[in-house]
């Protein structure tokens, strides 16, 4: 085993890491970089709590080696807000109460955000498909679906002056 | 529920008056408490019917009706009367 130096761009910040190649992306983000918003809830790529975006694409960060994401653009839940201003999807989650214990929320937000970036006007069915890879034990999902739908309807669109 | 007796029955083991003070309530109390002294008392007093605490308990749970409690209530009444007689 030979440790490797990789560069991850997480939420716009470049991190140089010296890692064992078996390090998972989620471990790099949480344990090496120290961003703990991304959670882990299983060992079988089932729960989606570790979902992040790699180049705008939702991916479960426990299913990817950190080294495979070398040089790529990663976004976690901490990267959604800009200078204290919440992103539309975050505002919608607040308005709809789309979280309870909050443990799945970071992953859920990233799946929702990736869905909206790819398809800004999803149908209800497409929203449900879009978050199907994320387990939420608390909410029953409907409040999350309502939040994504509200963003899609433009409820949180920035007013252009 | 059968009429509360003029004199409430007191548990022969711990001296507690169960609910209405009827023998059947006392029987329920004995099964419900179920600690070693109560078990021992029940075992001794239902032996003549070929029963034990645990057998009565299981019968109560596996057969409709209330035979176990009624049987124990009869034993309690009998024991109380005997004690009074002394």
């Amino acid at each position, binding site marked *: 085993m030979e440790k490797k130096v990789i560069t991850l761009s997480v939420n716009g910040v470049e991190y140089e890491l010296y890692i064992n190649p078996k390090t998972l992306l989620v471990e790099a983000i949480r344990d090496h970089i120290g961003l703990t918003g991304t959670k882990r809830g*299983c*060992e079988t790529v089932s*729960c989606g709590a570790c979902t992040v975006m790699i180049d705008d694409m939702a991916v479960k960060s426990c299913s990817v080696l950190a080294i495979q994401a070398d040089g790529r653009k990663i976004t976690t839940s901490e990267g959604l807000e800009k200078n204290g201003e919440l992103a539309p999807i975050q505002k919608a*989650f*607040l*308005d709809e109460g789309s979280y309870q214990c909050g443990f799945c929320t970071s992953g859920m937000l990233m799946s929702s955000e990736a869905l909206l970036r790819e398809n800004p006007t999803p149908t209800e069915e497409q929203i449900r498909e879009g978050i199907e890879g994320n*387990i939420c034990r608390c909410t029953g999902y409907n409040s999350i679906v309502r939040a994504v739908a509200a963003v899609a309807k433009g409820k949180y669109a920035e007013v252009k002056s | 529920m059968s009429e509360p007796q003029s004199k409430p029955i007191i548990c022969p083991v711990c001296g507690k008056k169960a609910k209405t003070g009827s023998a059947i309530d006392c029987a329920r109390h004995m099964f419900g408490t179920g600690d070693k002294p109560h078990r021992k008392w029940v075992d001794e007093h239902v032996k003549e019917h070929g029963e034990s605490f645990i057998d009565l308990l299981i019968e109560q749970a*596996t057969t409709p009706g209330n035979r176990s409690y009624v049987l124990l209530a009869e034993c309690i009444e009998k024991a109380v009367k005997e004690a009074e007689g002394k």
Partner: protein
Amino acid sequence: MNKYTVINPHEPFRVLNTHVHNIDGIAKVTGRATYTFDVKLPGMLYGKILRSPHPHAKIVNIDFSKAMEIPGVIGVVTGKDTLGVKQGIWRRYNDLCDEQVLPIEKVRYIGEPVAAVAAVTEEIAEKALDYIEVEYEELPATFEPLDAIKKDAPEIHEGFERNINVTRHIEWGEVEEAFEEADYIREDWFKCGGQHHMCMETRAAVASYTPEGKLTVWTSTQSAYYHQALLAGVLGLKEGNVRVLAPYVGGGFGGKFELDAAQFCASVLSMKLYKPVKIIFTREEDFIASKRRTPMFYYTRTGVKKDGTFCAREAKVFTNGGAYTGMGATALYLTGFFHSFPYRWKGYRYDGYRVYTNTLPSTSMRGFGAPQAMWCSEQQIEWIAADLGLDPIEMRRKNSHHEGYIVPGQATIASCGIDQCYDEIRKWIDGKGKLPANRAIGLSACGFMSGGIFNWFDSPYSFSSAVVTVNNDGTVELHVGAQDIGQGSNTTMAIICAEALGVKVEDVKVHSGDTDHCPADLGAWGSRQTLMTGNATKMAAESAKKQLLEFAYAGAGLNIVYDLDIKDGWVHAIARPERGEPFVDLVKRATRGKDGQRIVGRGYYTPHRKGMISPAYSYMLQGVEVEVDEETGKIKLIDSMTAHDCGQPINHLGLIGQLEGAFSMAAGYGYLEYMPFEDGKMMNPNLVDYKMIKATEMPPANIAEIDTYEPEGPYGAKEAGEGLTNPTAAAIGNAIFHRFGIQMKECPVRPEMIVNALKEKAEADKGKK
């Protein structure tokens, strides 16, 4: 996609039942919320637990010398490093304290901890487990309650004859006579499955013991106070020397208020090594070695008159208790009690038996025995209505509880909105018109408690307490021992405090989840906090308000017949709202007037003379539209409707979330969440094979909020969110019954069972012809 209606709403409040964001929301949607899972302390070690591969075995010897040789391994503990205290949460009864978290002599289920390792990395700790040699002497084991009570079954706990752990008996009325009045008696046997809490955050703890003799434990808990007291008890420490901190908690659902192995082993390791130790269960560990909903065998016999009047019911229940008691004794009573709900029975008798087996211990889980009770009761009632040709809604309605009803010897119903629940469900059904041939509607009624009144934990403290402190700038500190596990109790308490004190929610900071700084509270279980901690919070806030108003009266120069009040931060005469002063001005004056002391209000709540169970009961009706494929037995939920009486709702968004969430968990219990065991081994301890509702399976959840007033609750509030876990499985069962005429007696209902039942029915129908 969801319809929300309000029936007989109360006068609007300033804060209560308005659209208030969860006060922890921003932390949770920005990734700032840190959980025990995220706690990292300087010098922290990582712990892993070695678990028994045997369902029942004597521990002959444990040799961990080879593990200690691995570089990076710092320490290993076994039962011999502990005081060997047999603990349990039913502290009032010694017999029911039966679990050594690290057993010394024998193991009683697969997955039971036998040793724990601390190492500098999680990976080394995990590797070290392979180098601990445990010599077992295997014992015969028993897995099902109906086997474990047999005469020749192996003894799991010494002195528990036939493995009977707890028995419970409930009876009222002259049961036999009441049965004699019945024109029709039906009896059925049911089998109710287990269910896993499946909290997104697995069991987790970080323990740090320091040379002062003080232990601090961060943990994922439903009750910091319970864990403080339980840890003190097993570790031989004073409660005051144990500080339990609950950061954000990733779900509980009834599974996180007993002492768990993460908390215990991390503490024992830390006390041995004087270093912080973190233990996080893997998902598999969480499945095989935390706890589960209690599987039950139910016999129930019900007698009714021809016109549908309920006469008598008798139930006998055997539950699979698993290896230890936990909260099982309470679940055993509550299942029997709620099996009578929400109906009036002239005679009712319940005998419940909790049986030890060599399986994962079962305990409380959202609904606390009632989902099993309703699975049996509400299906049988539906079948009786069909047998007698009666309308199932009207038959239920005429026998239901009502305000003022007394459940003999058990409970007094002070508020009850179930009658209107029937109306709302009827409207929803009628609005659907004719359904496609492959769909049917099922419904189920239910009631639930608002906190338990029995002090089985033997707490010397009041059940709930709160302290309200008003800062000089008008902001408010609320200290409660209530635990927010995601259900939003911090927000609910902030709302109550803000409403009572007349300030904004944003001005209330809630402090909870820290035994050093918050008053003792029994915590988040049995739907108790809104009513109990809510009452304490209201009392504390009102006390602070009264102290403030004394200064306002003194300064206002008003005729004493005028009342003063505070609303929206404005102190004013009720009769002349425009005349007044800002709250903050009054606070400054009052603080000066008190010689600089902050205004502090204290409140508490302990139920007195409230019967056997609970101070108040919520009522609800669940309807669900289900599609079932006749050939494959596949179930799909199409739509749902909840009519719900929780008294006065307090936290509007929280209430919706609780109802929708309860529905999803309960539906999972009905048709997905299967927990098969083979020879004591759970066969699907992972999220690939354990199936739960996902976004694609969840139907719309329509809600009708039926507002009533519960005199015992704060502002008239009572339970919401746990109770709705109870009726749903039966509602799905009833939909299947109406779809095909088959009676499913085992849950969760799996497609294969439906197809088999249809085959049997076809054969039986052939036989009839």
